[in-house]
C-alpha cells in the first residue's frame, strides 16, 4: 500500500508553522523532609549536621533520611567540623549565560571531616591552578546576619595551609 503524505494543494507555498507557544508555570512548595529540615536549620546556625546509618555507620552530609545502601532510616545525628578535603575538582574556564563568578574559578567536591559523602562547593582564596586533590580546606561562611536555611551560607572553601591529606582519606570517594 502506498501512502501519500504530500500536502494538500491549498498549502503549496504556505510558510510552515515552526513553533507555537504554550506558557507553562507551576509553583511548588518543596517538602524538605525530616532529615533535610534538620540539616537546613543547622546551616542557619552555622552547623553542619549529618546523619549516620545504624547498619553501615556511614555519615551522610547532607542527609536525606535514608541510607541509600541499606534502605534504613539514618537516625543518629552527627555534628561535623567545618574542615574537609578536596576529593575532586574542576577549573571552570568557559563563560556561560548567567555566570556569576569571574573565570577561571574552581568547583570542587569537599569531603567534610567525618562525613562519607562529599559536598559540592567552590574553592577560593587560592590561584585556580594550585587547587589539587587532597587539599585541606575550611568553610567560609556568610556574615551572621545573612544566614539562611541554605547551603549558600558557605560562600566557598579556602585552604587551611595544612599538609595535603593522605590519598587513603578520600580514595573511596572517587
Amino acid at each position, binding site marked *: 500500500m502506498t501512502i501519500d503524505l504530500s500536502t494538500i494543494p491549498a498549502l503549496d507555498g504556505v510558510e510552515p508553522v515552526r513553533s507555537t507557544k504554550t506558557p507553562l508555570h507551576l509553583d511548588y512548595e518543596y517538602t524538605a523532609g*525530616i532529615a533535610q529540615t534538620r540539616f537546613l536549620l543547622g546551616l542557619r546556625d552555622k552547623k553542619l549536621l549529618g546523619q549516620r546509618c545504624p547498619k553501615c555507620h556511614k555519615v551522610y552530609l547532607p542527609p536525606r533520611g535514608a541510607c541509600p545502601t541499606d534502605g534504613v532510616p539514618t537516625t543518629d545525628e552527627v555534628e561535623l567540623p567545618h574542615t574537609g578535603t578536596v576529593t575532586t575538582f574542576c577549573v571552570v574556564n568557559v563563560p556561560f549565560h548567567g555566570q556569576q563568578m569571574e573565570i577561571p574559578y574552581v568547583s570542587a567536591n569537599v569531603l567534610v571531616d567525618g562525613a562519607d559523602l562529599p559536598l559540592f562547593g567552590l574553592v577560593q582564596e587560592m590561584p585556580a591552578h594550585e587547587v589539587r586533590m587532597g587539599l585541606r580546606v575550611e568553610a567560609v561562611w556568610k556574615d551572621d546576619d545573612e544566614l539562611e536555611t541554605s547551603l549558600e551560607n558557605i560562600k566557598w572553601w579556602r585552604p587551611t595551609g595544612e599538609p595535603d591529606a593522605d590519598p587513603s582519606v578520600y580514595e573511596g570517594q572517587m
Partner: protein
Amino acid sequence: MRDVAIVAFSQSKHERRIETQNEIEMMMPVVGELFDRTGLSADTIGFTCSGSTDFLAGQAFSFVTILDAIGPWPPISESHVEMDGAWALYEAWVKLQIGEIDSALVYSYGKSSPGDLPKVLTTQLDPYYVAPMWPDAISIAGLQARALLDSGKATERDFAEVAVRNRRSAMDNPKAQLAGEFNADDILAEPYLASPLRKHDCPPITDGAAAVILAAGDLARELSDRPAWIRGLDHRVDAHALGLRDLTVSPSTRLAGEKAGVGNAPVDFAELHAPFTHQELIIADALGLGDDVTINPSGGALAANPIMAAGLIRLGEAAERITRGDGNRAVAHATSGPCLQQNLVCVLEGDD
C-alpha cells in the same frame, strides 16, 4: 500462564498534606512493612518496579532518589514507569511470567501537596490545542460528567449516591482520608464546583504511598496462607484527544476487561479506580458488573486519591480482601490520563 499472586500489600495513612516527611520518608515505612512481613529484602527480591511522576514533586528524575528507601546496593534489578503503580505491577508481572524471577516488589507514591494538583494535571493534556487554555482536571472531568447526563445514562442523584456509598465504605478503612455518613439530598443541595460536579463528586487531594509484593508458585504459597492469584491482567488505551472519544463509555476498559476474563465467572467484589463519581458508573458498565457486585469496599479513590498510587491501591485492596476471605473472585481496575483515557483490569482469585 504461570501462577503469580499478590502476597502482601501495604499503604500509608493518606492525608491532605504530609508536611514533615519528604517522599523517601513517606515511602520507607511502607516498603519496610512488607520486608518485615515477608522476610524478603532488596537482596532477595527478584525485581523492583515503581510508578510515580516528576510533575508532582516538580523535580526531574525525582524517582531515582526514592530508591534510597529500599537499599539498592549492591545494585538491584529495577525499573520505573512514569505511570500509576498498577502499570509498574504489570511490568513486574510480565517479568514473572517470563520466568526470570520468582518475586517482585512494586511501589508507588504520590505527594500532591507541593503543587497545585488540578493545574499540574493539565500538563498531561494535548500541549498544542488543549493545554494552552489551561483547563484544570476538575473542569475536564466535568465535561465527561455533563456528557454522561446528556446521554440519559445517569442523573446527578446517581452521582451523589456513588459518593454516599464510597464515603460510607471508607469508614471501615483506617487508611482513608475522607470518610463519613452523608445523604444524597444534602449533597444535591450543595453548589457546583465545576458543573455538574459538586465537591462530593470529586476525590480528595492526597499525599500517600503504597507497595505490593508479587510472588510465583510455591514461593507465593510460602509467603501467604491464601495468595490472591492474578488470573487475568490487561491494559488498553483510548485516544488522547478528548474530542475523538465518546466520553460516556470506556472502550479501553471494556476490552481490557474482556482480555482479563472478567465475565468468565461471577465476581464477588470490585475495586474500581474512579476518581470522580460519574467515572465509577462508566467503568462498572464497561466491565459488565451488575448490582450484585460490591463495588469499592475500601471507599475507592473517593476516600483517598494519591495520584500514581491510587490504581495500585485498588489491586492491593482487592488482594487483601481475597487473602482475608471476604470473597474468592475480585476485579481490580486502575486508570490513568484525562477522562479515563487508559485502563488496566486485573482479575484476582483465591484458592476457593
